[in-house]
């Protein structure tokens, strides 16, 4: 069975997702256990695959037993195992966390279907990650997208509906562009297998058709990735979705989109393509990345709702990921990959914390965070750690990625990127500091006579989130520190991935 782990990785959550509503019919509470155990199994399988990849290199699994390029291949190398570990872990964390969170955000009788769709979402993102066939990416992308549209629209406030709808529109446009790009590639090369494409594509690099193909693939993915200025679906989607979903989507959804972008840019296409392209693609993407970094940070500053602020901050962070990709050198790629990990951990933590706050107070305005340090000390400690990591403080994982990005910028002579990275770090520090300030150094709203939306009977005593929320949140926050101090592990894996990609 070890040989079949790549297939089982996807098939197990898929089939469990399908039967979850049936399990839920026996007992609704069972669906949570099902989802948690399944995501845990996926995580364990990912770890086992990591071991195999480290020992043997690239894994290739032939679906239906057909040899690629005729059949669909599952190809796992350093790059996607890296992403896979992140997303399967975060999906697992999200599943544990959802137990209490869902109690207040989803109707009781819908729980089995919620977990079913949640598992389908997880299946989709993992499927996109491990597949070696570009059309198969599209199929799993749609599984992911469909489930995420519904999950977002589930949010309690009615704005969630429009947010879900807009995401659906943007997601569909993005996916269709991606499909169009695949069509161009197929028309020129006749194959859909990524490895085969990589072999057959170089002779067409100079053609206008391939350039167009690249454009549509890239634009489609940039939409999914919510790169500025294609980000506008994201803030509302993250702001109004149920907290678990905001956290899991922020931690995994954009990561996978970034992964596919890297895969397309450096495996399907190669560095040679960018040298031959009629436009300077690197420059264009670089401008986008820098704009995203700055705009995201500035817009985050202007927000009064924490979830929106985090969403805009994601726009900026995605800019970093894109920046690393765009620099097209090893250190940049390492920076980008580490930032994937980093952003998954810290943004995951932050959204999980917000979910816990919503669970306790029901509010998401930044004002509402006043005095929470006394009420929810551990949750807020996790928040503070993640915020520090966002800022890029040394010994957090946020520092590692920014360090690599800076090194890479200098390496290719773009020293001016360093001040930009710094400026955005500073802005990040400012908008997080507002909250940390509220959390630790200001009395709670009710105690100041401002009664706005505050339950007076709630004592300012320690009333931290329930353990099923607190433990996952705190664990992820701690990982921000662990990987900040022992960055060597992920960095060496990312380095191997980068070496292969940029060969």
């Amino acid at each position: 069975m070890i040989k079949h782990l790549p297939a089982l990785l996807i098939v197990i959550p898929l089939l469990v997702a399908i039967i979850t509503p049936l399990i839920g019919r026996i007992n609704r509470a069972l669906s949570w256990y099902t989802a948690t155990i399944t995501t845990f199994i996926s995580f364990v399988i990912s770890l086992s695959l990591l071991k195999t990849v480290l020992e043997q290199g690239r894994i290739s699994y032939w679906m239906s037993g057909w040899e690629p390029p005729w059949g669909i291949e599952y190809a796992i190398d350093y790059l996607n195992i890296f992403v896979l570990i992140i997303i399967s872990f975060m999906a697992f964390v999200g599943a544990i966390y959802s137990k209490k969170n869902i109690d207040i955000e989803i109707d009781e009788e819908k729980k089995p279907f919620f977990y079913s769709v949640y598992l389908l979402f997880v299946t989709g993102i993992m499927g996109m990650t491990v597949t070696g066939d570009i059309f198969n990416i599209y199929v799993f992308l749609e599984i992911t997208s469909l489930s995420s549209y519904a999950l977002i629209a589930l949010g309690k406030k009615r704005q969630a509906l429009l947010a879900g709808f807009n995401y659906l529109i943007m997601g569909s446009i993005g996916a269709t562009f991606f499909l169009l790009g695949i069509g161009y590639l197929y028309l020129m090369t006749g194959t859909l297998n990524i490895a085969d494409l990589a072999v057959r594509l170089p002779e067409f690099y100079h053609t206008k058709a391939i350039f167009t193909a690249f454009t549509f693939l890239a634009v489609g993915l940039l939409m999914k990735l919510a790169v500025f200025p294609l980000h506008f679906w994201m803030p509302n989607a993250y702001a109004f979705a149920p907290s678990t979903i905001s956290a899991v989507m922020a931690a995994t959804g954009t990561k996978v989109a970034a992964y596919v972008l890297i895969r397309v840019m450096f495996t399907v296409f190669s560095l040679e393509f960018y040298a031959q392209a009629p436009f300077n693609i690197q420059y264009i993407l670089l401008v986008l990345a820098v704009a995203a970094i700055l705009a995201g940070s500035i817009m985050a500053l202007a927000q009064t709702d924490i979830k929106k602020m985090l969403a805009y901050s994601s726009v900026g962070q995605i800019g970093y990921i894109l920046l690393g990709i765009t620099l097209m050198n090893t250190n940049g790629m390492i920076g980008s990959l580490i930032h994937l990990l980093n952003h998954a951990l810290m943004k995951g933590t932050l959204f999980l914390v917000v979910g816990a706050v919503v669970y306790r107070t029901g509010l998401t305005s930044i004002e509402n965070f006043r005095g929470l340090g006394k009420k929810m000390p551990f949750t807020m400690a996790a928040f503070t750690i993640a915020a520090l990591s966002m800022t890029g403080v040394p010994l957090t994982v946020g520092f590692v990625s920014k360090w690599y990005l800076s090194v890479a910028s200098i390496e290719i002579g773009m020293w001016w990127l360093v001040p930009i990275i710094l400026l955005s770090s500073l802005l990040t520090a400012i908008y997080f500091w507002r909250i940390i300030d509220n959390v630790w150094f200001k009395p709670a709203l009710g105690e100041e006579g401002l009664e706005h939306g505050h339950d007076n009977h709630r004592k300012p005593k320690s009333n931290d989130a329930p353990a099923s929320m607190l433990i996952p949140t705190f664990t992820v926050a701690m990982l921000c520190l662990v990987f900040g101090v022992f960055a060597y592990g992920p960095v060496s894996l990312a380095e191997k991935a980068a070496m292969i990609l940029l060969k």
Partner: protein
Amino acid sequence: MIEILAKYNYWIVIILLCTGLYGIMAKQNLIKKIIALNVFQTSVLLFYVSMSKIEGGTAPILLNHGHGVQPLFDNPLPQVLMLTAIVVGISTTAVALSIVMLIYRQYGTIEEDQILELNKHND
């Protein structure tokens, strides 16, 4: 004739695609947006299906398999891909429409500008 047909469907695809795209962005009515999205998606389907056709080819069904010379077959692969894509399209439409229904239920309208207006009031 063949010279025209060689590129003709590309142009049709482009026109349809851009009409759809314009509709998605410009229309305020959510249902119209979805219809436009469908036009947009089907244009890509047309693109794929167009490339499956070969001049003088027949549908890829091996009726006289093993009996003498095989006829020239059209390319089945794009057709297969598009079967999947159509299904994806209708699934998306179904989810989209159900969200629209809920939106109507909550806001009493399916015009985007009015919804945004209501959101502003209620925030």
